[in-house]
């Protein structure tokens, strides 16, 4: 029996040693705030809608949200560039060590944070500890058609590649891991390694301004690696040393609030 139990091995790799595999660059100068990424993400990942009241109470399930702030008052008012905020897939993710049941774990092969829905018991510690506040919790059975009869026909659209989450579990952006896996399988069946551009998450695919670039950041020639070298690049809350996998490019829209 003891042999069956696989105790997890935690390796403490410093950020210099790591060449994470998948990454993203978001250009805030291009993002127009149009919400296409939010819509695409929700459609791809079976993200449920929650209704007016819960949405107003911070319970909306958006895996990606678009933030913006203001400075000054009319007529000198400025809006900060739109800032799409999604799971940063940190290498040193604060959400991972706090989960008592290994529901929030790190993927060695993709170097992303995974949320294992069927392990989650809903302590919500990970969400508390996420400095980016990008984890969303199923406060109710938002996907239960018995409680929400209007879902019966809407559920025809659910993607079989993505688990439908029930009440009481935490969820978050996965970098569309089902697409990564599919591309890996296709590449394997064609006896080649994944090429740049083989994987596009739903958000990047939809973005009309092409503000989101996705790809392998361990390949220095990939589009995303090149984009991340941009002088405008920065990481969200870099001071926490979470080593996020998403590089933001400062935007300068509407004045100098970039």
């Amino acid at each position, binding site marked *: 029996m003891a042999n069956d139990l696989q105790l997890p091995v935690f390796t403490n790799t410093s950020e210099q040693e790591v060449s994470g595999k998948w990454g993203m660059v978001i250009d805030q100068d291009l993002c127009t*705030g149009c919400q296409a990424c939010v819509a*695409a993400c929700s459609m791809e990942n079976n993200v449920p*809608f929650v209704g007016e009241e819960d949405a107003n109470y911070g319970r909306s399930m958006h895996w990606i949200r*678009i933030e913006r702030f203001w400075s000054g008052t009319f007529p000198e008012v400025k809006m900060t560039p739109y800032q799409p905020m999604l799971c940063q897939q940190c290498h040193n993710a604060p959400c991972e060590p706090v989960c008592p049941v290994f529901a929030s774990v790190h993927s060695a092969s993709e170097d992303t944070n995974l949320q294992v829905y069927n392990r989650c018991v809903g302590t919500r510690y990970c969400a508390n500890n996420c400095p980016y506040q990008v984890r969303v919790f199923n406060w109710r059975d938002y996907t239960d058609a018995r409680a929400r009869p209007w879902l019966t026909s809407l559920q025809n*659209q659910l993607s079989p590649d993505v688990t439908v989450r029930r009440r009481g579990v935490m969820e978050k952006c996965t970098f569309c891991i089902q697409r990564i896996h599919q591309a890996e399988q296709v590449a394997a069946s064609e006896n080649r390694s994944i090429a740049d551009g083989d994987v596009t998450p739903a958000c990047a*695919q*939809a973005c009309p301004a*092409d503000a989101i670039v996705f790809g392998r950041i361990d390949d220095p020639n990939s589009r995303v690696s090149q984009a991340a070298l941009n002088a405008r690049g920065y990481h969200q809350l870099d001071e926490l040393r979470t080593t996020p996998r998403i590089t933001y490019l400062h935007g300068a829209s509407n004045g100098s609030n970039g």
Partner: protein
Amino acid sequence: MSPEISRRDFLKLASVGAATTAALTGCGPASRYVTREPYVKMPEYNYNGLSTYYATTCRECSAGCGLVIRTFQGRALKVEGNRDHPVNMGKTCPRGQITLQGLYNPDRVTDPLHRKQRGSNDGEKMDWDAAVQVVTDALTHNQPNEVAFLLGMTPDHLFDMVSDMTKAMGAPAPIRYGAPAMFESRATLVQAAQTVFGQAALPSFDIGGADLVVSFGANFLEPWLSQVSQTRGYRNLRQGTPNHRGLFVQFESRMSQTASKADEWIPNKPGTEAVLALAMGRIIAEARGLPLPPAFATADVNQAASQADINADDLKRLATILGNAQRPLVIPGGQALAQSNGLQTAQAILSLNAFLGNLGKAGGVYLSPIAPLEDAYHRPASAKEMADFVGTLKKGAVKVLFVHGVNPLFELPKSLSFADALKNVPQVISFATFPDETALEADYVFPDHHGLESWGYQKVATGSNASVLSGAQPVVSPFHNTKATVDLLLAASQAAGGQIASALPFKDELEYIQSKLSTMLSNANGFFTAPEINSFTAYFQQHGGWWSTGDDRLAPTAADALNANIGASVSQFDGDGEFFLLPFVSPTLAEGGANKPWLQELGDPTTTVMWNTWIEMNPQKADEMGIQDNDIVTIVSPFGALEAPVYRYPAIRPDTIAIPFGQGHTAYGQFAAKRGVNPVDLLPQKYNEAGDLAYAGVKVHVQKTGRARKLSKMEGVLGVYGFDAKQ
């Protein structure tokens, strides 16, 4: 699928294009010949566990973006953009993404209905044979001029077919209309092009090629003409030229989503865009030492700045920048055109473009390519024409009204009193897919398929350099007992006999479409050619349409553009209220999105409000009036009144309030009904010279009601507006 071509032949055909577009399949589960069966009997081109992708066209607005729908075991799962399609090039807007929630909407009209009493929720279900009989009777028992068709904005195969039919009958041509046409002021743009360039076409603005864009109220990053292609243009403006970031200036009284991306936002007083544009032209002409063109002769820079309530130095500075730009572009649009002087505004701005010398050049003004199957650009009806049509209805001259793809009871200003007009029409037949307000007031509802269940094509009006006929095909079998409207009308035409039957000798919708497509067989400009119609249709469906390989945009001629005195002045406003009213199309919902719950739950880009209508008011002004966030206020215009909660919006002129259009349905399904208010209730019956509604030409009163309703917001107001802000 047409019976002439077997599945196996089809597969051979489809595989020809498979090298370039690996995943696309050319033909859906041929909707009309297949009943819904358990999916153990799979079509042979489907593999268990693998998705099938169908190319089709988005029907959420009339831009005509190409979509590729991922289907899996007979269900549509995901909308993706068609990468080859020249309009959207693989990208989509949120409404396109969420079109599936329309397809699987729980509130769709499932069967043909006979409503005994208009306005009542329940109707008697009938079968389609009876429905065909009803339509046949309507066509034959009335004089041709007593039959009227009111269609949506999209120039699609249904419009062509109805046009053919009405022509054969001798009935008036169908009218295309939609709220977007009103908010986009298409008639004004076309009329201005006619006046300035001598060509009645829809201007096309090459945003991506410019290095400076000055927009007068044009919400080109929002649902305005062709959102996705314009957003691509915005991207190219910023980053299309290496090491040169194009600049963008927006004149608008409220910081719209588009203005929020501008480098500089100039909140001018509504209705002063024409004088500002002319003043800028004058400044540039003077700076260049050119003789003052007659168009700008009357402009007075300081007066214009004071009329617009902006800093004259700002105006001069921006004009200088504009004059020095290498590829400048000035765009008219939005509420700037929806004023009594809207046509002058458009003319002034197009003249300014002509003066800047960007006509037909990269980064300049073009005329949109003429779509295949068209001789010229045919715009949807203007509000004035629509008002005339409502007048015809009111007189009782129309005995039967067919409505498809438009919801006039929701989209037309209340002041036109379409509801009263409808009472004078003895028979109203709606083809609505959803139980919208107009369908509720119809005697018969013969539901059309959802866009993803139907065949078709769509002539793309603008948004691409090439001439595009976007193709549509069913991606899933019909979910309900619905019937393609074209099929219904063709069947009725055959049953009616006579001229109609001989003019439309088609067995079904696909045959009609093929008859139209066959005229394109000889067109060698397309990215594909085919020797005969079946192959052509297969390619057409497989790739999501036909488009030419070249640049079909027309270069406008500017012979007399600058010689006319435009004589623009500040616009006139109805009402004596203290606020300018600025209705705008909700960037997420647009006119038809309210019934899709995920669209409702997308935060508005600038305010992050979800699920409701809000009124944007300047916070300083609100403080003066003692209005807090979420306080319900009454807006009174001379034409109506409505109540909605306030969002204290930091970036709006204190003398302006703005309200989004898209909510306020009384029907249209559980997610839309009784939610928010509809700003068209406030709009005047006032038109600019091109016949477009001067919807921004009204001043309103605002009164506190003392009540409040929490607006559902994506943002936490504490963090965005400080600890004092009300949640």
